[in-house]
């Protein structure tokens, strides 16, 4: 192992520690922190080696992929008056088993990390072949994923209307809201990608205010409005899990995660949705494990693809940012990255167990609405600092769109229209026409 790899691994460990702070905040995405790192790198050119930067980013993404289960379990107690579906993590929290939920997700994450490392020897051979076969078809595959995402949302109405029309309108309330969310977020994405609303020097963060508004702020707003309180948590030394269930969860999550990691604009959530449907999941434990695996395989896998010799596939926001400064070139660096993933992932898992216990202690002592309010201030501060008032305006518009699925009980995943719609339109050559219709030329 050479000095470059050691730099990479060492800084990956630092990255995990940094991400441990930010990953525990609700609605905070690690790409926001990475954006901050990028600005710092731009201003202090030459002081940080490229390998150290790559390692730091690797640590950030591994840490985030494993640790961001904490806010989703602990910092969002479900208020039955404001939500439509209680997620398994929230269920566990209300059953005083939040630590167990975090541990189950962590087991899934660890499984995903080991699976990625087990696949590492084959990636340099398999990835270029898969890429050669699928690249000419990306436009319709992405369209197929989008169509399935929209078609597979089923009515959540109560089916109690007196007439057929009432039942139809009831059923289509959430479905229509989902389609509207997709369309509006798609138009927003199209406007952002084809205009100069965001300052040119922050072009790599062009969609950041939209993502903060679509996903981050609605979560925080929902928390602020919530009246529910999490009960005092119990800490058990074991989890209710069988090896067969763990294997099934890791398998399903890995499939979804790999799919999402390979295809641009397909996120871990969409991958997990597809995998969940494909494996007909019902068990909450299976859901938690597969979510843990899917997240890790998606975030870390997409980042690792950049290091695969002979492939240099740039997928995901982190890889996109890093590739602007650094392009890994040797098998030694690739194996250094794999070793960094294993080490950083193991550290992140231990941190997860410790931080979930700390969060379980904190959740009954600190009102999470206070934490949500602080997060809201931080998010707005980030947007304002990086993208100015125009960015804040974009975030406000995006928040309006992001609140539609929250208020009407449709899938929040439809907000991914912000990326999916512009990409599909662009790849099918319709970009200039749509740009013209929207008056952006």
């Amino acid at each position, binding site marked *: 192992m050479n000095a470059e790899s050691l730099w990479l691994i060492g800084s990956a460990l630092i990255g995990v520690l940094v991400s441990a702070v930010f990953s525990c905040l609700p609605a905070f995405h690690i790409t926001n922190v990475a954006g901050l790192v990028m600005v710092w790198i731009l201003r202090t050119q030459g002081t940080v080696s490229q390998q150290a930067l790559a390692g730091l980013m690797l640590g950030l993404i591994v840490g985030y992929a494993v640790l961001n289960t904490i806010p989703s379990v602990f910092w969002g107690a*479900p*208020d*039955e*008056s404001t*939500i*439509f*579906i*209680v997620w*398994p993590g929230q*269920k566990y929290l*209300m*059953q*005083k*088993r939040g630590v*167990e939920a975090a541990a189950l997700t962590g087991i899934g994450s660890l499984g995903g990390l080991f699976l990625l490392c087990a696949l590492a020897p084959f990636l340099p051979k398999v990835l270029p*072949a898969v890429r*050669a*076969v*699928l690249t*000419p*078809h990306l*436009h*319709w595959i992405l*369209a*197929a994923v989008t*169509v*399935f995402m929209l*078609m*597979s949302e*089923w*009515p*959540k*109405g*109560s*089916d*109690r209307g007196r007439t*057929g029309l009432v*039942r*139809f309108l009831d*059923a*289509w309330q959430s479905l229509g809201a989902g389609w509207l969310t997709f369309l509006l977020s798609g138009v927003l994405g199209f406007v952002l990608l084809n205009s100069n609303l965001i300052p040119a020097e922050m072009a790599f963060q062009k969609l950041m205010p939209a993502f903060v508004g679509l996903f981050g702020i609605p979560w925080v707003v929902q928390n602020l409005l919530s*009246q*529910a309180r999490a*009960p005092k948590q*119990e800490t*058990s030394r074991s989890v*209710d899990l069988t090896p*067969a269930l763990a294997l099934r969860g890791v398998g399903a999550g890995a499939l979804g995660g790999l799919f999402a990691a390979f295809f641009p604009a397909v996120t871990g959530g969409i991958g997990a949705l*597809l995998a969940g*449907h*494909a*494996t*007909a*999941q019902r*068990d*909450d434990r299976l*859901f938690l494990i597969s979510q843990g695996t899917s997240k890790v395989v998606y975030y870390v896998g997409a980042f690792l693809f950049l290091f695969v010799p002979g492939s240099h596939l740039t997928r995901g926001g982190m890889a996109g940012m890093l590739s602007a400064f650094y392009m890994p070139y040797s098998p030694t660096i690739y194996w250094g990255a794999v070793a960094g993933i294993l080490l950083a992932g193991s550290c992140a898992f231990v941190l997860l167990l410790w931080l979930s216990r700390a969060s379980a202690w904190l959740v009954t002592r600190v009102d999470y609405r206070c934490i949500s309010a602080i997060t809201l201030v931080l998010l707005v501060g980030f947007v304002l600092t990086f993208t100015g008032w125009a960015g804040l305006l974009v975030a406000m518009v995006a928040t309006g769109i992001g609140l539609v699925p929250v208020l009407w009980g449709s899938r929040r995943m439809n907000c991914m229209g912000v990326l999916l719609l512009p990409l599909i339109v662009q*790849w*099918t*050559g319709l970009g200039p026409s749509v740009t013209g219709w929207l008056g952006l030329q």
Partner: protein
Amino acid sequence: MKGIAHFVSGVAIATFFPEVVHGAVQNLAFGPVLGGIAGLLPDTLDFKFVRCFSRRDGEVDPAQMLDASGSPDPQAIAGQIVAAIEQAHRSDRPIHLQLHTVRLGADLWRQWSVTLDAPHNQVIVSLGPVVTTSGEPLTGSEIGSLEPGRAPSPVPILLTGDPEVRIDLFSGPTLAFQKVGEGVEVTFLPWHRRWTHSLFMVLLLGALGWLVAPVYGLVMALAVLTHIAEDQMGCMGSDLFFPLGRKRVPGLRWFSSGDPTANFLTVWIGLSVIGLNLDRFSQAPVLPVMPYLLGMIVAPTLLLLGVSQWTAWWRPRRAAKRAVFTSSMSVGEWLDETAEMDVES
């Protein structure tokens, strides 16, 4: 089968046509997506349109039929179902009865079941445990003192499916009662898998696709046909010969629609076929066909079926040794907290 299995099957069917694959690459067309849409369309039509406008002659809402203690009254429910059977027999026209679920919270439902006991000509209604949206029952949540409700039917009950209907999550099912001879035939979900799952639909979508391009007509027709064939392997069957016949042709009962192995295998095989076809019809194929088929389709299929069979053999033995449901906290406490949350909201 799950929607994704039908969708992937439809896309896989489309990739068997070189024109569709070439069109997708050279003209940036969306032919394979049409296959997916057609594959999922029968269920989309049923669940998002047909169900809303389906006929409804009566409703059974246990939350509105309470006894003196405030619990749903199984006897009254059984009585109402038998009344619908009688009405169907008397009026000689089909009676559609909507059974509603009992929602207790955002994630809690009271399970209840209707057993159409044909040998004894009676309807039995039982209240089950409280279940979560994942279908997980909470131990001790049964109403212990409550006896099942039993109502004798004055006319013979003729079954076309399983005798027990369990109602728990989201929207409840519809039952149709229709006089046949001296008895009354019971049909589960009378609005589902009718014209949308028929050979008529195959022709209709085929014709619609044909208008765009003949090959798309073929793709869409075959995608719907594949959907119907996949559903026929289950229990309910489909109304294959609509409008000539108005009865569902029973399924082969090889597996239920939610079976994880069957669903996963269908998706896996579909995706593998898509990969192979895209490569076969590319300018420079890289995949060796036979090793690919063996490695990606035959071996995983055998492995998964083997594991599934072994699990089916092993699970009942293990289940007998385990506690029914292990939870780290008592259910009573859990329910108390839920009630508290309801009050707060």
